[in-house]
């Protein structure tokens, strides 16, 4: 019905937009040049954009009697729009980007103030030769604490504003019990093999294997919990999971408000073909989490924290020492024939610098390790100190991605399939509602200024009261329908079998 209502609104807006466009704007010839910078929301100035991105609509956040914006490509093609709400015609935008691929475009904002036109200092954006993957999946959820109600797994077409609901928890629920849905993951940017979890009501892990969805219960008696953070092997029907015993504590005055921590976490491997689950790492002094495969599938990266509770009971230990829990990034070799793992190597020794490194993600060319680094802990999405870092796996250089980061939390990052774009969540807008930011990553390992993914309504992010999380790129749309997922979830879960090795 979202689509249905959207269509009706779309028609109405279309009529309105058509009327507006009929009032073609002209660039004021007599405008005086000003050194003032244009204040626009979202900030789409001095960025690098993929040539296939949807129009970067924006709002001019300045007082004036009239507004005109001129977007000019290097080929002298122009788009002129009246403001303050700048909604760019998608066809003209596409043409402008295509004609200026590998070059740039310049935006000039004109304001009519006190009867005189003023041209603000123009800004230029680069247009990358590299496209961004068409599809981006994420979850929409209130930035809540313990409770949840309506949740959506959504797939966005980044070349337009189309959103497709992969699944939501409104398909089946009890009047007083909803499902929690989380941790969607895809195999190698394709959607034929994907998974997400449904918790609570009719819970289980929904695994789509070769296009067929099925509900599995990964938890066996030998594991501390159900599979949580997933990582599909790039070529095999295998998923590595962390199994975590998680709890939440609340800050009495710290603006970070909530602390999510694991008191226990191990790594397991689930074999879809034989429904077996085996332990990868379950060292009692280590908290292993956030598994991630190298693109060749020969290494499993993960975050791990060394802990010694010295007999103190776990809840007290973790609430007293939460700032001392620091994660490193390790990796272990994987033999795909015998399904065995080798000895661990530390790749990022963050703990020795008093930091905590999480969410290792290897670039598709295998050269770069992208991770988030904060002062402590395992849930950086709530840590204001969390920033994106990268490590060059060829020469070992590690550095912060300054242009992508902000004073607030950056986390849950993913690579595009060509390795030239990174997407991540950031709470920079207001410290609470996370938004998805996109940034160009050059072959030399430099990142350009990050920008929020565009929306049809420029002020969407200012008014939208849900957080975006876990962005994952895919090169194709999810083909399993919402109803198929719903049907699979209604069935009883297939119990995974524990395999000792």
């Amino acid at each position, binding site marked *: *019905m*979202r*689509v*249905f*209502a*959207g269509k009706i*609104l779309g028609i109405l*807006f279309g009529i309105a937009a058509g009327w507006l466009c009929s009032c073609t704007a002209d660039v004021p010839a007599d405008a005086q040049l000003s050194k003032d910078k244009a204040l626009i929301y979202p900030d789409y100035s001095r960025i690098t954009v993929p040539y296939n991105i949807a129009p970067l609509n924006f709002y001019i956040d300045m007082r004036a009697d009239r507004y005109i914006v001129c977007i000019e490509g290097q080929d002298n093609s122009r788009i002129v729009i009246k403001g303050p709400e700048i909604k760019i015609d998608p066809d003209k935008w596409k043409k402008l980007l295509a004609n200026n691929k590998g070059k740039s475009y310049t935006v000039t904002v004109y304001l009519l103030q006190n009867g005189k036109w003023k041209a603000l200092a123009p800004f230029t954006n680069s247009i990358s030769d590299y496209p961004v993957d068409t599809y981006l999946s994420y979850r929409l959820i*209130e*930035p*809540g*604490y*313990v*409770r*949840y*109600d*309506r949740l959506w797994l959504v797939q966005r077409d980044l070349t337009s504003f189309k959103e497709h*609901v992969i699944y*939501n928890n*409104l*398909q*089946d*629920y009890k*009047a*007083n019990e909803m499902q929690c849905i989380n941790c969607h993951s895809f195999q190698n940017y394709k959607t034929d093999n994907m998974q997400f979890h449904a918790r609570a009501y009719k819970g289980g892990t929904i695994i789509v294997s070769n296009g067929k969805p099925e509900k599995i219960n990964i938890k066996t008696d030998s594991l501390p919990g159900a599979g949580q953070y997933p990582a599909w092997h790039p070529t095999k029907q295998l998923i590595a999971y962390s199994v975590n015993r998680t709890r939440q*504590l*609340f*800050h*009495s*005055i*710290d*603006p970070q*408000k*909530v*602390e999510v921590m694991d008191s226990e976490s191990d790594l397991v491997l689930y074999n879809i073909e034989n429904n077996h689950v085996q332990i990868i790492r379950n060292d009692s002094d280590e908290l292993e989490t956030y598994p991630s495969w190298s693109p060749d599938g020969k290494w499993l990266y993960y975050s791990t924290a060394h802990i010694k509770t010295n007999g103190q009971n776990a*809840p007290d230990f973790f*609430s007293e020492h*939460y700032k001392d829990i620091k994660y490193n990034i390790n990796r272990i070799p994987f033999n795909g024939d015998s399904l065995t793992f080798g000895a661990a190597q530390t790749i990022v020794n963050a703990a020795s610098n008093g930091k905590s490194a999480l969410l290792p993600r290897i670039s598709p060319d295998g050269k770069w390790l992208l991770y988030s680094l904060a002062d402590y802990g395992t849930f950086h999405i709530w840590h204001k100190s969390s920033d994106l870092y990268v490590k060059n796996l060829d020469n070992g250089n590690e550095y912060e991605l300054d242009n992508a980061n902000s004073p607030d939390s950056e986390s849950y990052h993913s690579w595009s399939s060509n390795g030239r774009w990174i997407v991540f969540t950031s709470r920079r*807008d*207001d*410290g*609470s*509602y996370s938004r998805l930011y996109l940034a160009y990553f050059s072959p030399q390992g430099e990142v350009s200024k990050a920008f929020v993914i565009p929306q049809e*309504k420029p002020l969407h992010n*200012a*008014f*939208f*009261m849900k957080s975006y999380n876990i962005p994952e790129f895919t090169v194709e749309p999810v083909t399993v329908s*919402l109803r198929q997922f719903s049907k699979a979830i209604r069935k009883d879960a297939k119990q995974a079998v524990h395999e000792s090795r």
Partner: protein
Amino acid sequence: MNTAGTAVFILFSYWMTAIVRTDMLFRGQELSLFQFSSSFFADKMTQPAGFLEYAGRFLTQFFYYPWLGGLIFTGMLCLLAWMVYKAFGIDKNNALVSFLPSAALLLFVTQFDYTIYIIKHSEIFYSHILGTMAALIPVWLCRNKNNKFCIATIVLYIIAGYPLFGFYSLLGTIIAAVRGKNTAVTATSIIAAATVPLAYHCIYHDCALKFMYIYGFPFRALGTSVYLWIPLFADYLFIILLPALRGRLGVNVLRISQKAAIPLCIALVLTFSYRDSSFRKQLAIERAIHNGNWNKVLEISSVPCKEQSRLICLYRNIALFQKGVLLDEMFKYPYETSSTLNTKNKRATYTEIGSTIIPFYYGLANNCYRWNMESLVNNGACVSYYKNMLLCSVLSGERQLSQRYARQLSSTLFYKKWADRYIAYAFDGKLFAKDKTLNKVKALNTFDNVLGEDDVTMESTILFHYLETEPESLAQIEMSMGIALITKSNSDFWYCFEKYANNAAVLPRHVQEAALMFGMFQDFDMEQIERMCNRDVIKRFEQFTDLVREYGNTGMSQEKVGRIAEKNFGDTYWYYYQFVNGEITN
């Protein structure tokens, strides 16, 4: 329609809503949200009956002025009665019978208890009136029309009406089926009602198949309060049965019904409406807090009532603290409270209801923000949560976050000014400094961060915070002292006493009372303590100890001694300490 009968119903309905339940109407609109934006409309239309939700919320916002909201509400009930009268072609002489569905829906609203705080769909004040009106449309359109017209009308109605009215469009179709004197009309109605929701399930993304027939009915809105559905069933039964009964009842019966209709309406509403003086008191206090009128809070608090809610004590202590007289007057007011709220709704606990406001005024902005977020997730967005979250963000210095909530409130009809006032505080420290209330709260909101687990209840969170936190400012010492007195903790009392004696020029009355009593218990140097106390306090303490000793020696029960002591010492800490049981919340 009968003018006198109609006038009586109008006056009664207006009295029951705008006068008797004026504060409930006000709170009702605070716990609702209507925004003038296309995305708000689109969001409401994602499920069948979305229009009822949208229109219901639109009308609910006018409860901001209860006199106006009550007028609109009564007007809608009358419009419904008129539609019943017209749709069923009721005889002029029996017209007052048409008010029965309106009375059921009036009762639906007047029977609301504490459930109102945790309603998932705040439009329910109006959505069922609007829904019943929608259900009458096909009946009305098909009156005295041929079968072909009726079939076409019913099919078109349900196709167009289901997304707008959900369950009520099915109800309308069923009434049409009951009234249909032709098999084809009845069969078409039944088939349409059975199949159209299933067909729409293919279009809607946000719907469960098993609920397709009941979207629009408050199956989620009222939680476990199924008893609140009864007036709705009465409404449905009436509009289904009225046309069927009309032909079968004799003229005499109808005449009696006509005469009895309005008295029956009034009797039903008066008998089954929710009556709880504590509930009314609480709503009035919350409205006074919205207006920043702490004197009013105290004035309302001082009125005794049976089974008083614990939240009233907490609100009252906030007001006393704001007025700077917490430690002088906190035991002057009634302290006996009920252990649970007077409701059958299991979800309506003190914590669930109070924690969206109360922790803020105790300086626990993070805790309050968290509970507003949890409630927002559970019950949906509303003005009240956004207001509280804006205040919490302003207090915590989170400017951008406070702007987000201010934007939401600015999109409403009545809260833009309120939002403008408080968002200005986030950016202008001088303006903030002029706000006495927020400054007193800010003085409490300065302490070292503690990472803690969820305490079971809101009140225990507040108590533990003050018992475990080192008070620094005078405001914090004052509040900590108050908590030490409430919890009857003499060690915490003496800890605060030392700090308080060093900071305050004069010891407040209850502090003197507690010092005398705890000093005596612990064999302290009473002369030193008495030097810090007023003579009349010392004299009364002697009288109190004499009284307790005298009656205690007679073997009289603690309860009886308490009743005797209450007459002269009910306003003292000694009485509270000896005879009032400790804090109780759920």
